[in-house]
């Protein structure tokens, strides 16, 4: 059974034909249990709309969405779901402890269970010392951490995070990344959206690329990045000037990195360049494939599918 299933979901906004806009178009996607799925795309691509459909905050115009095998309109399913919105807005005068009490109570947890779990979570997100302070005094990072604790209070099977890294400082991003890894280790399903692609590279099992409301591609991250290596980077313990004369007929790109020089060569020249460097006794430190960045891959996918449609 899939943890999350979008079955041919379309969402159209605006009743008047002139004001109509398709936010999500025929989205079909299944996320199995235990997977960390990254939902990628530029701003306005339809990521948040899809997430709000999952949370039953908005309703699909056609198609259906299921979580843990049950329709999302069944609120009982959210006993096993955790959600963190992009900009969590809380009740200003509540404290993190009270917030977690609410989250646990509406998930059917006992008072004692809530107390125990809240203590552990507040410790995890480093808010124990401010657990009785009102949320209105919190910084954005602290509110985000309170949101994480709120999303996890019911020990959910599925965690939905909308742009979890957005607006966080490097420390906050690390905390979030560590948390996603930890949830994966615990066998939870994590579905998160992001437009900051660098943040998702090490976290996702699979990614889905969405743009202009249409799902363009779903693939394992490694498959996506492995396609069409752009060439190779060879690190050599020689100065660029020395190498330039040795590799003059190949005209590769050079860049100095401290006592090393990085040479970027196209796929077809790798063998010959290695041979030349070997014969000239250059000390080769490493040879790594020059992969396209996730940004480049996503952009290419969007452009390609736009072209196909057009």
């Amino acid at each position, binding site marked *: 059974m899939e943890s999350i299933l979008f079955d041919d979901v379309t969402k159209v906004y605006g009743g008047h034909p002139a004001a109509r806009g398709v936010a999500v178009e025929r989205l079909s996607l299944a996320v199995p249990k235990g997977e960390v799925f990254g939902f990628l795309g530029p701003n306005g691509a339809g990521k948040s709309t899809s997430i709000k459909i999952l949370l039953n905050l*908005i309703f699909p115009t056609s198609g259906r969405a299921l979580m843990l095998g049950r329709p999302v309109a069944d609120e009982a399913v959210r006993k096993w779901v955790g959600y963190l919105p992009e900009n969590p*807005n*809380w009740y200003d*005068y509540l404290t993190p402890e009270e917030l977690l009490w609410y989250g646990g109570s*509406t998930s059917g947890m006992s008072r004692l269970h809530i107390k125990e779990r809240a203590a552990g979570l507040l410790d995890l997100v480093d808010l124990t010392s401010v657990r009785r302070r009102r949320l209105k005094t919190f910084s954005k990072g602290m509110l985000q951490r309170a949101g994480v604790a709120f999303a996890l209070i019911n020990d959910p099977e599925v965690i939905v995070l909308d742009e979890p890294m957005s607006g966080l400082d490097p420390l906050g991003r690390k905390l979030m990344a560590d948390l996603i890894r930890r949830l994966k280790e615990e066998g939870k399903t994590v579905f998160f959206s992001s437009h900051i692609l660098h943040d998702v590279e090490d976290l996702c099992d699979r990614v889905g690329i969405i743009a202009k409301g249409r799902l363009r591609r779903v693939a394992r991250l490694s498959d996506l990045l492995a396609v069409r290596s752009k060439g190779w980077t060879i690190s050599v313990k020689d100065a660029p000037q020395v190498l330039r004369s040795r590799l003059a007929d190949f005209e590769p790109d050079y860049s100095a990195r401290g006592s090393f020089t990085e040479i970027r060569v196209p796929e077809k020249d790798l063998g010959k360049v290695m041979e030349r460097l070997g014969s000239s006794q250059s000390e080769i430190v490493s040879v790594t494939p020059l992969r396209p960045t996730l940004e480049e891959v996503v952009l290419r996918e969007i452009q390609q599918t736009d072209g196909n449609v057009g």
Partner: protein
Amino acid sequence: MRNIGAIAKITFWEGLRSRLFFALFVIALLAFSGTYTLSYLFPRDVIKVAVDLSLGTTSLIGLILTLFLGTQLLAKDLEKRTIHMVLAKAVSRSEYVLGKFTGLSLMIICSVVLLGGFAALATWTVDRLTSDAYGVMHWPLFVLSLSTIMLMLILLVSIIFFFSSFVSSTFLALGLTSVVYLIGQSVEELKEFLTQGAEGLAVSPVFLKVVTVAYYIFPNLAALDFKTQAAHGLVVSPSTIIYAVLYAMLYTAIMISAAAWIFQRREFP
């Protein structure tokens, strides 16, 4: 029930800690402390004026509290999208509406009990320091009036909920509820004037029809106002009290059910 209780509790906490709540109580205390002095400006009717003033202050402060805190606590949920967090848990839309309404009603009950307590203290002080020749205090009517003020404020909360269920602006919900309050206070009097007391005046049948329709649509808040009876010691029949209580409860139930019905179908983008 548990979800309704949880939402009611956080709504109550949130309301109780707001600055507006404390600010209004400070103003109320100042107003009540002025009751003694102001009452003696009318030496023939000291007790009547004291009751009028203290109940009027309770009603006014309660009204401001209900309108502002009510719209703030509900419409802000929608404006700031805090509702996303509340509904992200296993809570139905109806439970949200009922929980929020229960929390706000609890706030109103506590406020009226507190304000009423101050009002009673202020009036009691005037009563103790004044001879019976200046008027007699009617405590049962005083309590009746406070209770119906409370019912009226809870009814207004249900109207705020009704408007907030389909408008997304705090100010619009506040404005519409204020208009309903003003119409509700005067529609009965206007209808009576047009049907009975307007002899010799040429009243358009269309206007009379409009007023009659308004009388049945808008809440008749005058039916919940017993301040004059409390001040003058006028007899109120049990049937009048029962009618007022049942009317307020039924109107409130209809408004809340309509709000819950609309919320079920509403999207929160």
